[in-house]
C-alpha cells in the first residue's frame, strides 16, 4: 500500500504543501474561496526550519502503535487499517490535549475545523487525505510538492532505493552516486552559512 514518504534533504521550505493541505481540508476545495471560509481551514503538515535553516515538512507518521491513540482519554483516535492512517473523530474528541503530550513529533494542533461540529475546538492532524483518496486522488501535499520532498509510493520500494543510494555512496566511486546535486549544493551552502554566522 502506498504511503507518503518525506525526503527532508529535498525540502526548500516553500510551504506550498501547507497551502495545499489547508485547501484539501476546506469546504470549497479551492485556495481562493478557502481563504475566506469560517472556520479558516488550517494545514495539517507543518513546515519549519531545522538546524541550518533548511526546510522540514513535519507530518504525522501514523505510528504503529500510536502513542496519541493510547493516550486519548475519550477514545477518539483510531486507525483505519485499509490505509494505515491514524484518524481523530472530531465528534468524540474533547480537546484535552492528552495527545499533544504523547505525540513525539509535535504534529497535532487544536482549532476549529470545517470537518468538526460547529464552534468546537478539536485536535486536528494529517488524515493522509483519506477523502481525496476515495476519489482516486493522491494526498494534496504530495501532489503540490515541486521538489520531490514528498512522494507517494510503496514504502518497500522507497526503502530499497534509499538502501541502494547509501550503498552506492559508500563505494569507491562516490561522486557517481550524486542523484540530486542541486539540493546537495544548496544544503551545503546553507550549512556553511550557518557555521559562519555561528562563528561570528
Amino acid at each position, binding site marked *: 500500500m502506498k504511503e507518503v514518504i518525506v525526503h527532508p534533504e529535498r525540502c526548500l521550505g516553500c510551504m506550498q504543501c501547507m497551502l495545499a493541505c489547508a485547501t484539501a481540508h476546506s469546504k470549497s476545495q479551492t485556495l481562493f474561496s478557502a481563504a475566506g471560509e469560517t472556520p479558516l481551514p488550517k494545514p495539517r503538515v507543518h513546515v519549519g526550519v531545522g538546524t541550518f535553516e533548511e526546510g*522540514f515538512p513535519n507530518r504525522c507518521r501514523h505510528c504503529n502503535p500510536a502513542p496519541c491513540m493510547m493516550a486519548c482519554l475519550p477514545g477518539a483516535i483510531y486507525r483505519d487499517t485499509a490505509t494505515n492512517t491514524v484518524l481523530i473523530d472530531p465528534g468524540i474528541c474533547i480537546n484535552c490535549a492528552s495527545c499533544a503530550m504523547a505525540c513525539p513529533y509535535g504534529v497535532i494542533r487544536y482549532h476549529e475545523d470545517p470537518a468538526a461540529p460547529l464552534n468546537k475546538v478539536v485536535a486536528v492532524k494529517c488524515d493522509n487525505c483519506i477523502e481525496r483518496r476515495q476519489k482516486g486522488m493522491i494526498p494534496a501535499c504530495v501532489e503540490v510538492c515541486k521538489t520531490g520532498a514528498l512522494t507517494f509510493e510503496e514504502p518497500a520500494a522507497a526503502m530499497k532505493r534509499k538502501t541502494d543510494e547509501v550503498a552506492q555512496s559508500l563505494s569507491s566511486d562516490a561522486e557517481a552516486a550524486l*542523484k540530486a546535486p542541486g539540493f546537495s549544493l544548496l544544503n551545503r551552502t546553507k550549512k556553511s552559512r550557518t557555521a559562519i554566522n555561528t562563528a561570528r
Partner: protein
Amino acid sequence: MHYVVIGNGVAGTTAGETLRRLDPQSAITMLGDENFPPYCRPMISMVLEGTVSEKALPIRSADFYDTLRIHPVLGTRVSQLDPESKNLATADGQSFSYDKLLIASGSDPRAIDAENQNLDNIFYMRNYAQVRQMINALPSFKNALVLGGGLVGFKAAYGLLRRGLQVTMLISSGYPLSMQVDETAGQMILEVLKSRGLLVRVGSQVIGFEGGDRVRGAFLADGGHIPCELVVIGKGVFPAHGFVPRDKIKVDAGILVNGCMETSAADVYAAGDVAEFIDIARKRPWVNAIWPEAVAQGEVAGTNMAGRRFVYKGSLSRNVIRIFDTDVMTAGLVHPPSDDMEIQVLTETDRRRRLYRKLVFRKDVLAGFAMVNRIEQGGILTALIRSGLPVEKDKSRLLAPDFNFARLMPGSRACPIH
C-alpha cells in the same frame, strides 16, 4: 491458569485485554468496587464542568466482560491477600484463588483531619458517583469551598466556576498546582482563575465544618470562617493497598515493582496508581498516579503475566490542563533540588503573549519541563525525556514556541548522503 485482576480502572482493563489477546484459553477474574463498565476517570471533572456528557465516559462497551470472557466481580473490595497460599478474600466474604495476580486497585482520596466531615454536601471528587451527586445537588448551591490546590482541587474549582458558583479555594502552598508547576507558571494560572472570579485563601487549613444536616460553613485553623453549601476535598490521593501484607510484599509509598511489573512476591504483579516504579526523570522509585502511566503499566503487566517478557523502562509524571484560554503542560522534574550541580535550568517568559517555558536538564539530558500556552509540541519534549538522549547543541532552541522537530535532528541527517 487462572488470572485475577484487582481493579477495573484503566490499568486493570488494559491488563485484562492484553491477557485475553495473548492467552485465549485461561480464566480471567476481574474485581472492582465500582459497578460501572470501565470508564474514563480523568473525564469526570469535565462532566462536572458541563463540557462533556456522561454518556462519553465509558471507555469500553457494556458487553466488555462478556466479549473478553472475563468474569467480573463488582461492587466489592479486596480485604485480604495471602501471596503464599495464593488466596484472596473480599469485604463481602467471597474468596478466590489465583495462579497469577495483578494488583491494580488504584488510589483513594486522602482524608482530611476536620470535625463534622459527615455533613451532607461534603464530597471527594474521585469517581463518577461522587460527581453525579454533586451535579444533582448543584442548583441548591451558591458558594463552594474547594480544599487543596492540587490537580483534583484545581479541576473541581474550575468546573464549579464554569457552573457559575462562587468558589473559594483554600491552599496550603502559595499557588495552585505546586506539585506540578513552578512558581511562575503557578502565578500565571492563579491570575487566570482570579480574573474569572475565583477567591483564593493561602496558607490555612480547615479544622471543622458547621451545619445541621448540610454543611453551611467551614472553620479555619487561623480562626477564619468561610460560608459554603458545598465542599470538595481535593487533597491528593494515596495508593489503595491496605489489604497487602507488608511482610510478604514490599511496599513503600506504593507497591514496589520491577520493569516487568512484578512485586517482591512470586506471581503477584502491580500496575497503575497503586504501583511504585522507577521514575525516568527523577531516577528513583515514584508513584505516578496518572492515566497514561496506568495504560502503559497495565499492558506491560498483562504481557508479562501471559508469559512474554516485556521490560518497561521507567514511568514519567506528566500532566496537561486547559483552564479557560490557558493551557499548561508539565512533565518529569519541574522542581529540581537546588544543590544538584548537574542540573541546568532554562526559562523564557513572555508576559505579554502569556507564554512561559521552563526546561530542566541533568547534564545534557532533558529531565523535565513546564510550559504555559503553545503546548501543542510538548510531546516532543516528553519523548526527549523518555529517550534520555543528550541535547548537545544549543538547548535554548527548545524554548522557542514554534520550534520544529528538525531542530533536534543532527545536521548530517538532513543533508543528503549522495
